[in-house]
């Protein structure tokens, strides 16, 4: 497997302004702070974290939907590498056919005045590849093909978004993102506005499309169980930084960062007999404009010491490609998703 996406020291800063007319920049929020990772072709990398952790900003910055303030994003397509962060406007438009996004709210992301057919053909007729997708018939064939793959019928194409339920709208949004046959798809909370029974439809559809179209996903979500279901690897974000990253099994079953442990313990498992030993974090996430010194999690961390306030822990290897940013990663005995629920140890040991 080769790397499709390489993100290197990516940062996104938003200015904080005061005043209305003669506004002054009084500081910056580091929404994404020095984040690096790669995604292999055909892989799904999950990004989990709570609101304000910077996961959506990260997804947008990768596609340059928001301008990064530092670092680089590189996409490897058909043997050449596209330096996404240094492209000019025109080249960026052309590069967008390789990278697309699916948003959270299918009610807000579809134009209510366009039919499904128009929504799905717009990327083919209005994008940088204008004119290169052939005649109207050929374009329509592409539209019908992707719509069918996403579970929409041909006669639904002439209808407007309001005629569809939330789940079907999300299918339309997925079809729109895939009609250009991108290599990378950033899915930003693609199921969180949907009902439980529909979430399963969309999760399975995304998995199926990944197989048939050879897609690579950056899957951003706060639902840890859904992320476990679709992702090969997971990055955990807290206040703009990746605090832990590894295979889904590593992160879920043998977490090395106290925040990951707390997140895992907080997920309510749909089982009334599941033993619960939740680690209740005190307090809430600090103001991202004024992050704590040292480790950003230390104000809520049950294991924090003076060292944590003085030094920022780097994201460092913890064996088998598992990365963690904690001074005490080697000393802490943290519990994973199975142990926290009194599950069998066997599964954890096989992780070896």
């Amino acid at each position, binding site marked *: 497997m080769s790397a499709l996406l390489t993100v290197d020291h990516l940062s996104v800063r938003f200015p904080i302004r005061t005043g209305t007319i003669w506004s002054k920049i009084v500081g910056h929020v580091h929404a994404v702070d020095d984040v690096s990772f790669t995604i292999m072709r055909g892989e799904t990398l999950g990004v989990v974290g*709570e609101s304000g952790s910077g996961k959506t900003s990260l997804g947008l910055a990768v596609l340059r939907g928001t301008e990064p303030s530092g670092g680089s994003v590189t996409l490897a397509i058909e043997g050449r590498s596209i330096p996404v962060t240094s492209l000019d406007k025109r080249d960026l438009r052309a590069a967008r056919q390789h990278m697309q996004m699916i948003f959270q709210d299918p009610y807000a992301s579809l134009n209510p005045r366009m039919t499904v057919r128009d929504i799905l053909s717009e990327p083919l007729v209005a994008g940088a590849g204008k004119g290169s997708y052939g005649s109207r018939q050929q374009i329509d064939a592409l539209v019908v093909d992707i719509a069918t793959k996403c579970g929409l019928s041909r006669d639904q194409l002439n209808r407007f978004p309001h005629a569809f339920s939330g789940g079907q709208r999300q299918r339309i949004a997925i079809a729109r993102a895939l009609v250009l046959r991108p290599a990378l798809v950033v899915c930003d909370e693609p199921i969180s506005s949907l009902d439980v*029974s529909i979430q399963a439809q969309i999760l399975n559809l995304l998995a199926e499309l990944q197989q048939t179209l050879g897609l690579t996903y950056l899957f951003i979500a*706060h639902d840890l*169980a859904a992320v476990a279901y679709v992702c090969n690897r997971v990055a955990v974000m807290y206040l703009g930084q990746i605090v832990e990253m590894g295979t889904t099994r590593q992160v879920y*079953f043998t977490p090395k960062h106290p925040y990951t442990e707390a997140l895992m313990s907080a997920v*309510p498992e749909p089982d009334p007999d599941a033993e619960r030993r939740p680690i209740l974090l005190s307090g809430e996430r600090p103001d991202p404009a004024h992050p704590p010194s040292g480790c950003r999690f230390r104000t809520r961390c049950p294991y924090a010491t003076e060292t944590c306030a003085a030094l920022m822990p780097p994201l460092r290897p913890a064996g088998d490609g598992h990365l963690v940013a904690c001074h005490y990663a080697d000393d802490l005995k943290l519990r994973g998703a199975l142990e926290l629920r009194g*599950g069998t140890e066997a599964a954890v040991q096989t992780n070896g």
Partner: protein
Amino acid sequence: MSALAEIPVLSVNQLSIAVDNDGTPVPITDDVSFTIGRGEVLALVGESGSGKSVTALALMQLLGAGLRIARGEIVFETHDGFRTDVVRLGAKGKAIEALRGARMGMIFQEPMSSFSPIHTIGAQIAEVVQVHEKVGRAAARARAAELLGKVGIPDPVGALDRYPTEFSGGMRQRAMIARALICKPSLLIADEPTTALDVTIQGQILQLLRSLKREFGMSILFITHDLGIVAQMADRVAIMYSGRIVESGPVRDIFRHPVHPYTRALLDAVPRLGDIDRGRRIQPIAGAMPNIFDAPSGCRFHPRCPVRDMPRCAEKLPPRAEVEKHFVECIHGERELAK
């Protein structure tokens, strides 16, 4: 279950709520019956459009314009001998106003929209006491500060003079809980109270609700779509689908031995943390919740049901089967419950 839980605080009988559709009433919940015992937590579970929130609003006569209670009774009785049928009280007048916010409290999903942004937290919480009890401003403020402390807000006295926008989402939800509990209600209606919150904050709020329930000895109607929260919070569960309760029973029975095809399908549709290892595939439910103006005949789940028996399921409502307080509305109910 404790003996106290056998004494009902709330008995809802055959409640039907109708929406006015150009002059013709269309039922959006139909024949909804359930009870909540003292100190008991009942989870009302359903997806959007199932009628769970509208049922909760009806309990306090808070239905919006165009909606009305078409039939049924809502009997509310408390330990001090107070007993009333909320339906008969009507939506306006002293009697229902004395009940709302005092004997029954309610918390909502979005704490920001349930506080006024231009009044302080303290004023909005103290107001509830002053409306319902003959106490002065200072005493009401003291009570508000006490409650804010109980729900875990740091510096409760200082918090009285702050505005809702100065609070984070979790703190606002705590303040809303304080306001709902300040008159020591016998019943708390919690409509998706943690849906807008982060998972670690959700954990804090659920923990808080559990400990307050013990301290205040109140009953809770917990409305949610999250089966994980149900498993963690509820003593009993009622599953709603398209305006009807299709299955209800003790939480353990519902999770261990679900009978209604919809309940089973819901449980099969949720991914779980342990799935990475087990290779379990989640099973989506085909189709979508029916439109209330075009509800299917017979059993409303029949168009999506994997075990339907046609044409029987489309012809008339299935009978209700019961074994030891586990109720199911399905033609296979009796046979499956006996297993």
